[in-house]
C-alpha cells in the first residue's frame, strides 16, 4: 500500500493508506484525532474542516495521498497547552454549540475566515462566510456571537 507522511499539529506522522483514503479518515482512523467530524457525504456540511498548508479545506474531500509533505492543523492543534484558543474560549463563553457536532468545523472555518478577511468582521460578513458550515441543531445565533467575540479576542491578543 502507498505511504504518506505529513505534519499534523506540528508532529511528523506517516502511515499506509489506500488511494481512496480521505484526509479525514487518515486523521480519525489512523491518528485517532477524532475531533474532526464527518457530517455528510456530499461535501456540504463543513464538520470536517481543517487547515491544509494554512488554508481551510473540507478534509472529507481531500485525498490523504495528496497531503504528502503538507502541514495540517486540526481542532486538536489550536489550543496552547491547556489554554483554549480565543476562538474556542468564545464558543464556550457564548454557548456557541448545542450538541457540539459541528463545532470543530465552525471553529476551524472561523479561523480561516480571519485569515481571508482580517479581524474586522461584522455580523453580516460572519453569517455569509459561514455558508460552508451547517449546524444541524440550528444554533446559528450563538455561533455568530461566538465568532464575533472570538475575533475580537484574537485582535486584542494581537
Amino acid at each position, binding site marked *: 500500500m502507498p505511504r504518506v507522511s505529513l505534519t499534523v499539529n506540528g508532529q511528523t506522522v506517516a502511515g499506509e493508506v489506500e488511494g*481512496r483514503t480521505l484526509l479525514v479518515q487518515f486523521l480519525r482512523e489512523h491518528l485517532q484525532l477524532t475531533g474532526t467530524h464527518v457530517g455528510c457525504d456530499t461535501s456540504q456540511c463543513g464538520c470536517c474542516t481543517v487547515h491544509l498548508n494554512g488554508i481551510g479545506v473540507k478534509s472529507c474531500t481531500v*485525498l490523504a495521498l*495528496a497531503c504528502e509533505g503538507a502541514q495540517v492543523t486540526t481542532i486538536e492543534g489550536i489550543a496552547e497547552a491547556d489554554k483554549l484558543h480565543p476562538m474556542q474560549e468564545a464558543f464556550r463563553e457564548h454557548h456557541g454549540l448545542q450538541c457540539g457536532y459541528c463545532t470543530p468545523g465552525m471553529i476551524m472555518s472561523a479561523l480561516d475566515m480571519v485569515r481571508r478577511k482580517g479581524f474586522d468582521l461584522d455580523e453580516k460578513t460572519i453569517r455569509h462566510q459561514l455558508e460552508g458550515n451547517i449546524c444541524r441543531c440550528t444554533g446559528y445565533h450563538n455561533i455568530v456571537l461566538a465568532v464575533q467575540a472570538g475575533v475580537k479576542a484574537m485582535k486584542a491578543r494581537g
Partner: protein
Amino acid sequence: MYDFNYHQPKSVAEAGKLLAADNQKPLAGGMSLLPTLKLRLNRVDGVVDLAALADLQGIRREGDTLIIGATTPHAMVATSADVQQAIPALAKLAESIGDPLVRNRGTIGGSIAHADPGADYPSAVLGLGATVVTNQRQIAGDAFFTGLFETALQPGEIITAVRFPIPEKSGHAKLRQPASRFAIAGVFVSKRAHEVRVAVTGVGPHVFRLTQAEAALAKSFAPAALDGITLDAAGLNSDIHASNVYRANAAVEMTRRAVAAAS
C-alpha cells in the same frame, strides 16, 4: 468509494501519459470528482493529481486577454486584483460559487471539465467568448459545452488554461439554489464594440446563449431593451427546486439584472 490508484505527475506531459491508460481521470480540486466517486455515481481506476503542477496555476494579463490557469482556485479568481480590474463580473461570479471552503479548493478547469448544468464558470466561458486551452489544442468556448456533463474534451485531454478576452463591460447575476448554491438561473453578459453576449446556465442541459436578448441589447445595452423578450420553456430543466417555466422566466430576469449590474 471504490479504491483507485493515485498518481502525482511532475509535468503536464507526464500527466498526459498517465491519462492514456484505461479509466484514469484528472483530479484538480476534487470538489466535484470526489463527491461523485463517494456516491458511486462514477468509478475510476486511477486519478492523476494536477494540483502540484505549478504551470497550470495562476492569473496573468496579456494585452486584451486575461489568462487563468486551469488549477487556479475560485478564491484566487475572486480576490485577484487583475480579474477585478479587467473583468469585474468574473471575480463576482467566482465569489458566488459554493462556499468559502469550496472556493479554497475548487478550480476553474475542474468546473468547466465537469460541466454541471448548474455550474457558474461555463456562463463566463460562453458569455465572454473565451478559448479553452488544452495540452493538445485550443477549443473555442462556443464549441466546448456539448451536453449534460459533456464537453468537447477527448479522454486524457487536460485543460491547461482559459483565455478570456477583456470586454468593455460585463455583468453577472445568479439565482442560487440556497442549499447547494449552484445556479437555478445564472447569466453572464458582456459587451464589446462589435458584439453583445448573453450566456445562461442552470436553465438547460448545458450553458447556452440567449440570442434574442443579445440582438436586443446590441441595439441598446439597457435592461429596458429586454422588455417583451421571453424564453420558450420546452425542454428546459425542471426539478424540485424550480420548474422549467420558472427557470425560463428567471433566465430573462437574471439577464436584466446582469445588464443593470454591468460595469
